[in-house]
């Protein structure tokens, strides 16, 4: 469908007399993606979220002028010309505890404070950086490792395949969330020592590694299946018949096909990783205090749920918006790259 319109109406920029060459599959997919309004809107939202979160230091320095990483239990701020304590005496019950200040909707403590008297708005921005960083890096890790495992197992076959496939089977059958929790608890209580490398227990590398590892089977298995299928495909058989060396078949025939599958997996995996990160952090075995992520802020807000609900509600909304955008963008990428998606265009 798209191909026909392209042939009939060449882009205005095309030099007169130039023959329209068929575009490569990547260019076609990219074009298709750019025409997908929902996917482009989602991409815009994602870029906006990333940019806003990257501005966290600017916000904390120039707008809120608060330190989001140390507690502020006895401080006061000026709201409408009056001095107000950040931690206010409780008016309900026995009146012994303190309640953090609610949203001021002005510079400092825009969305109020958490139980440590820290600025929730500033922590949301810094937390977003960590959530995005962890979800993104672990996605890259998953895709690279899963791609490697899937290609090696599928392409070389034999005992390599048997060993790798059995390992994947075991990981696949391990309840995925329990695997994440066990790895997190063990590494977070003592950090991780691998030979000369020591990763301290509050390092962001731990959640990245753990989340990057646990979803490998979910990607590696389909990749392996695809490689097996490609190996039997006519163009690969033809290449083998022509005496093309294995390495060239791998690079020219197998890799581009696998790469497109991995790209389809990327946004959807990142969405899943984002939720996993927030769940682990919510159980306080992900990002460690005083660093923040959207999950840890929800956890901080759990004790304040009935008095200062925004602390727990806002980071959740941030997660939902990001994950919805990732899913919508991921659907667009899939429709653009997956030839089967042509079927779906009709509905």
């Amino acid at each position, binding site marked *: 469908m798209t191909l026909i319109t392209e042939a009939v109406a060449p882009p205005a920029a095309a030099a007169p007399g130039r023959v329209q060459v068929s575009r490569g599959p990547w260019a076609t997919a990219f074009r298709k993606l750019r025409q997908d309004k929902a996917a482009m809107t989602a991409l815009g939202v994602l870029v906006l979220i990333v940019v806003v979160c990257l501005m966290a230091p600017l916000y904390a320095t120039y707008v809120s002028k608060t330190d989001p990483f140390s507690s502020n239990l006895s401080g006061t701020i000026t709201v409408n010309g009056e001095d107000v304590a950040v931690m206010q005496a409780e008016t309900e019950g026995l009146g012994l505890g303190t309640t953090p200040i609610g949203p001021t909707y002005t510079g400092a403590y825009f969305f109020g404070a958490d139980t440590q008297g820290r600025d929730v708005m500033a922590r949301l921005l810094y937390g977003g950086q960590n959530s995005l960083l962890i979800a993104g890096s672990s996605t890259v890790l998953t895709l690279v490792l899963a791609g490697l495992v899937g290609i090696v197992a599928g392409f070389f076959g034999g005992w390599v395949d048997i060993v790798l496939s*059995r*390992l994947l*089977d*075991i990981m*696949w*059958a*391990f*309840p*995925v*969330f*329990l695997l994440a*929790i*066990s*790895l997190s*608890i*063990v*590494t977070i*209580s*003592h*950090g*991780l*020592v*691998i030979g000369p490398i020591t990763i301290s227990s509050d390092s962001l590398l731990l959640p990245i590694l753990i989340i990057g590892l646990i979803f490998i089977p979910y990607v590696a298995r389909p990749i392996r299946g695809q490689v097996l299928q490609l190996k039997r495909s006519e163009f690969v058989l033809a290449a083998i018949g022509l005496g093309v060396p294995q390495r060239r078949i791998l690079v020219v025939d197998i890799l581009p096909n696998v790469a497109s599958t991995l790209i389809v997996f990327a946004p959807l995996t990142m*969405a899943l990783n984002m*939720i996993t990160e*927030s*769940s682990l952090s*919510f*159980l306080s075995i992900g990002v460690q205090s005083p660093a923040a992520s959207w*999950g840890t802020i*929800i956890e901080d*807000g*759990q004790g304040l*749920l*009935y008095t200062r*609900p925004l602390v*727990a*509600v806002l980071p*959740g909304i941030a*997660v*939902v918006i990001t*994950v*919805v955008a990732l*899913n*919508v963008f991921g659907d667009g990428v899939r429709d653009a790259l997956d030839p089967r998606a042509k*079927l*779906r265009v*009709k*509905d």
Partner: protein
Amino acid sequence: MGFILLRRLGEMLFVMAGISVLVFLIFFVTPGADPAARIAGRNASPEVLAAVRHDFGFDQPIWVQYLLLMKRLFITGDLTSFVNRGQKVIPSILEALPITFSLLLGAAVLWVVVSILIGVTAAMMRGTWVDKTLMVLGLIGVSMPVFWVGEVANLITQSRYHDTWLFSWVPALGYVPLTQDPWGWFKALVVPWITLAILYIGLYGRVLRASLVEAYQEDFIRTARAKGLSERRILIRHALRTSLVTFVSLFGLDFGALVGGGTLLVEYVFGLQGVGFLTFNAFGNLDLPMIMAAVMYASVFVVGANAVVDILYATLDPRVRTSRA
């Protein structure tokens, strides 16, 4: 068929043995994770540490420890907790089971019924605003972290709107046994059921719509139309039946994963002390016998669900069966 089942059983046993080794390695061999140090406390003297090590058998070779643990879990069944010494592991899990099952069964009924309604409605009205709205809602359902949905549900039903007619019936958090007070059991679980079901309603609704739309492009639907069958019959006997193959296999896998500890976050948020909760506490205490038992219990369901789905698949879709033989 008998041979296939036997091979399948062998595979299951292999995978479960692999999982038990993996759990054991994670908690015993991971550098820095010394269970004796954890049990003895932070500032234990070297003598105390050595005593604890001997007491719990940590000074024996690693494979002896592993075999002993396996023997006490599967053969003698008298495995006891490291943390609450004397607490038998298997009865603790059996005690927590009814809670997890109560949570899961209600949620499963809810998500199957609602997602079929949503999937069919959206597929029948595809392209209209109803379809689009349902799919957007489904997408949002899929994208919400379940623990956060639980918190928001608590905020609404326990605090903000608890004093209105709408939610005044919602009891305080916690579990009420079905045998003690069926109505109380129901009231205590309605909110957790909805919370757990939302994700799956979104997921299954979307999957079902997609496979219905695909089914309607198949030749056998055209044939059914040409035969003059009613739209209703085409939907139920032909389109929906094909689409349910995907639906059933998804359901099997998700149900297995949820029985095996996937309900943890919902249990945690609503204070239901089910298997997920028990497992999480065991993890937190590095209580290896409890962890091992809980993970083995969970993997029975996950591995079992995988096997059942494979067999069901072969029964529902003959093409799979012939290609395997």
